[in-house]
């Protein structure tokens, strides 16, 4: 779909959606009119827990980390706020928020640092453990007030400035600001790094992003929101006790997240209202655990998208469901964002009237593909990438045995060989996904061996994967944008809040991303959800992402697999274009005719060793190699045009 079409759709939809949101927000502020003051305190409690659900949404749904017990940060921060409050009763709500954010954030870091070194679910279990232990420890500890907890009514001098409707309005504003932050986050560089992390750790590394650090940032950020929730709770409920939060709270928060819609902007608000509303307005006596446990279980099993899935199941108001989905999808927020800036990359005038499938091919015919300078001007021709006597064994199987390989900048170097000959292993060794048993890998004079994949990527070695690794739920443009942002950093906080120099920088980045997409002929699909693209187009998105990363070397793992002949032509042009701007391309490929056509040098591997290394013509003339790698038919075919590549 073209940018224009997106805009048209927005013009039709936007005013209605905007009025719906404004009406809903006004109604939210008027909620207290429905009940007495006693209920108001309960509603304040629901708003406090909403912040916990927003935090959970960031860490679990946006960044994909299984921190299911994150709500433990709420109990921890609650006591951290309530205990000093006894001796400093004049503390403001803002002061309490600061303590909450700092204490919860520190706790998040303390738990995440050791557990994330092992596996995601270790952190999940550790946080549940914490949710179980905080109330148990607190009820025996005199500092936290024992079983009764800390009651602020009885503290001399504690007289909150805000109360009643004003307090509710302030808390609700806080929750709405947090929701707005969530919306900004999803379409910010940090949000895109989170999306990459959720989609695949290998992808994150290939873009030079450190997964471990990004995970910890997501946990600390989520915990910080729980800290704000704790401050709101202490301020409005005026007590904090072991019973304030427990494992049941963890489950209620998860249920709110799932039912509201995990990963969506409005989900936490809606889910909290439903789940915590039910919990405080209806008495389930002893059966609450069964009701909410089953509710959670049934939703994750049969409606993992939340309440809107139920609408779909019943077939009731399908149009309403579609509208909600469009607004709610993380990708949709980005579409709105890119739509506004979209005009920037439509420099070539109106798109040709062609079916969208022909996008890539159309661009090739227009001469867009492979033309123009590499984004950012292109790196100077630099040092070679050298593999010296590399060796790697898996158990008793030697996958790579003393292989040598040199890729120079500006050349296309083909790497061929049958399945299991060690091509992909060699590629994984160069990019740091495997560690060498022996040998050396050098970029110029700098050893790459022993470095982590993200460190190697940061030195300018980009790679694509055998199975394309794309962020399915983001747009094609966002998939490329994330690579641009690793080269041209715009400042996380500035770009998130859309202020200052970062605003201009992110506009420039958007243009760079669009340009990279245009180089593979996909500018017409820029705002499509990447998961909806055809397999071939997904590969091209991955290549555009590598281009946008502005590498000095680009390692492609079977980029031609599954491409149509037209798409293969686009690929060939793109590869040649890259080489002509000084990038060294290592092409691992089974499509021998294509390798013979584009490569200026070819290395052939067999059972882990290098059998041949030289120009394509020499390979054709070498009968032993030709037999092994070209086969009878191809040999005959190439014997006809002995003159060399077309």
């Amino acid at each position: 779909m073209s940018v224009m079409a997106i805009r048209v759709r927005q013009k039709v939809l936007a005013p209605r959606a905007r009025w719906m949101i404004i009406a809903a927000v006004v109604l939210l502020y008027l909620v207290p009119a429905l009940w007495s003051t006693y209920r108001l305190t309960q509603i304040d409690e629901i708003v406090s827990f909403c912040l916990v659900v927003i935090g959970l949404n960031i860490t679990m749904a946006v960044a994909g980390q299984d921190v299911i017990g994150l709500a433990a940060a709420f109990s921890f921060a609650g006591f951290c706020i309530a205990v000093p409050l006894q001796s400093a009763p004049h503390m403001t709500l803002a002061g309490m928020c600061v303590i909450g954010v700092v204490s919860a954030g520190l706790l998040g870091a303390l738990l995440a640092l050791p557990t994330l070194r092992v596996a995601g679910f270790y952190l999940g279990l550790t946080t549940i453990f914490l949710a179980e232990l905080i109330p148990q420890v607190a009820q025996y500890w005199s500092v936290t007030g024992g079983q009764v907890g800390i009651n602020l009514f009885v503290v001399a001098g504690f007289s909150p400035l805000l109360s009643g409707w004003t307090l509710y309005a302030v808390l609700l504003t806080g929750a709405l600001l947090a929701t707005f932050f969530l919306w900004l986050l999803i379409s910010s560089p940090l949000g895109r790094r989170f999306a990459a992390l959720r989609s695949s750790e290998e992808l994150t590394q290939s873009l030079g992003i450190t997964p471990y650090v990004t995970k910890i940032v997501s946990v600390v950020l989520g915990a910080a929101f729980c800290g704000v929730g704790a401050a709101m709770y202490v301020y409005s409920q005026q007590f904090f006790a072991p019973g304030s939060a427990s494992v049941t709270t963890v489950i209620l928060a998860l249920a709110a997240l799932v039912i509201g819609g995990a990963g969506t902007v409005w989900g936490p608000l809606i889910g909290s209202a439903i789940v915590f509303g039910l919990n405080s307005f209806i008495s389930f006596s002893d059966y609450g655990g069964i009701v909410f446990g089953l509710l959670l279980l049934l939703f994750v099993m049969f409606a993992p998208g939340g309440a809107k899935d139920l609408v779909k199941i019943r077939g009731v108001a399908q149009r309403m469901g579609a509208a909600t989905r469009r607004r709610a999808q993380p990708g949709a927020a980005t579409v709105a964002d890119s739509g506004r800036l979209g005009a920037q990359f439509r420099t070539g005038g109106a798109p040709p009237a062609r079916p969208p499938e022909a996008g890539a091919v159309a661009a090739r015919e227009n001469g867009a593909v492979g033309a123009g300078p590499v984004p950012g001007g292109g790196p100077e021709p630099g040092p070679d990438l050298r593999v010296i006597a590399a060796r790697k064994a898996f158990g008793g199987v030697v996958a790579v045995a003393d292989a040598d390989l040199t890729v120079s900048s500006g050349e296309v170097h083909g790497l061929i060989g049958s399945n299991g000959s060690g091509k992909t292993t060699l590629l994984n060794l160069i990019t740091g996904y495997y560690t060498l048993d022996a040998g050396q890998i050098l970029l110029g004079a700098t050893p790459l061996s022993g470095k982590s994949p993200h460190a190697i990527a940061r030195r300018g070695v980009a790679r694509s994967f055998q199975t394309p690794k794309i962020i399915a739920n983001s747009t094609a443009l966002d998939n490329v944008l994330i690579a641009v942002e690793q080269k041209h950093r715009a400042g996380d906080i500035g770009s998130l809040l859309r202020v200052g120099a970062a605003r201009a920088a992110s506009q420039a980045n958007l243009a760079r991303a669009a340009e990279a997409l245009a180089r593979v002929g996909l500018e017409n699909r820029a705002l499509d959800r990447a998961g909806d693209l055809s397999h071939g187009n997904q590969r091209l998105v991955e290549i555009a992402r590598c281009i946008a990363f502005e590498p000095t070397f680009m390692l492609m793992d079977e980029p031609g697999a599954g491409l149509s002949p037209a798409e293969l032509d686009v690929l060939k042009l793109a590869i040649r274009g890259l080489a002509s701007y000084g990038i060294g391309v290592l092409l691992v490929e089974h499509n021998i005719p294509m390798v013979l056509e584009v490569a200026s040098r070819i290395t052939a591997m067999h059972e882990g060793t290098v059998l041949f290394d030289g120009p394509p013509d020499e390979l054709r003339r070498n009968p032993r190699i030709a037999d092994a790698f070209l086969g009878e038919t191809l040999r005959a075919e190439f014997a006809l045009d002995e003159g060399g590549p077309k």
Partner: protein
Amino acid sequence: MSLAITTLIAGIAVGSVYALIATCYSIVFLGTRVFNLAQGDIVVMGLVVSYFLLDVYHLPQIVTLVCAVAATTLFSVLEERLIIRRFLKLGSAGFGWFIGTLGLALVLETIWAILMKSQNPVPIPSPLGSKPLHLGSVSIEPDFVLCIAVTLVLVVAVALFYSRTYIGTSMRATAEDRDLAGLRGIKPGQVSMIAFAMAGVISGLAGYVLAPIAQSDVSIGLTYGLFGFIGLAIGGFGSLPGALIGGWLVGIGQQVFDVYINPNYDLLAGLILLLVVLSVRPTGLLSSRSIRTV
């Protein structure tokens, strides 16, 4: 001195239950890549069955044992069929199973609390009687001996299953890839079913031997489950001897902490122990290779 030895033996006995839970986690994870958070409450099911059959209906011990194991095994198989298989179908990328099994744990814990609410918290009789064994000046509860013996037998049996039987070796070989199991003539569904059934049998036995020790406290499911996880993490994920050693270490540490320091803070001590071990040796004591992320 005799207090120290009694503490040590009590620690090994409680630790044995953690070791059994850790073994269940490993078996289920190996077969399905799922970490069953309801495991602790399935062990408590064995305890609840023991309480009702022995204290309320006064049935013989052997009948109780059979019923406890049958109940937990049936429940585990049903859990696999009705819940886990759904998540396996949805793909391992989501965190559905993680949340789902936590929800199930809460449901079970609530049911056990409701069932026991109107019951007298009387002790559950031990199959070996209540007369302590005397070794010199040290007296040992027979329940502890039973608990340790059953655990040793079960861990050895599981180890033999994985190393000596065709299905066992196939399950181990194909743990990384469910579809690979098909190449050895085993349906992926069969693998997860067997894993859950094994965990069910072990949980039932664990609940039965735990009953005289834990008395009729049924709120311990999640706590035991979490201590089992700490044992697993300390011993080394995926290693059977690791689960045993880790479980015992946690049990002994907990009993020593309770007797000599302060029983109110043993959960906190457990968490600190876990964080320290993971900081120093992330893969645990007995596992040298790092586990694959889920």
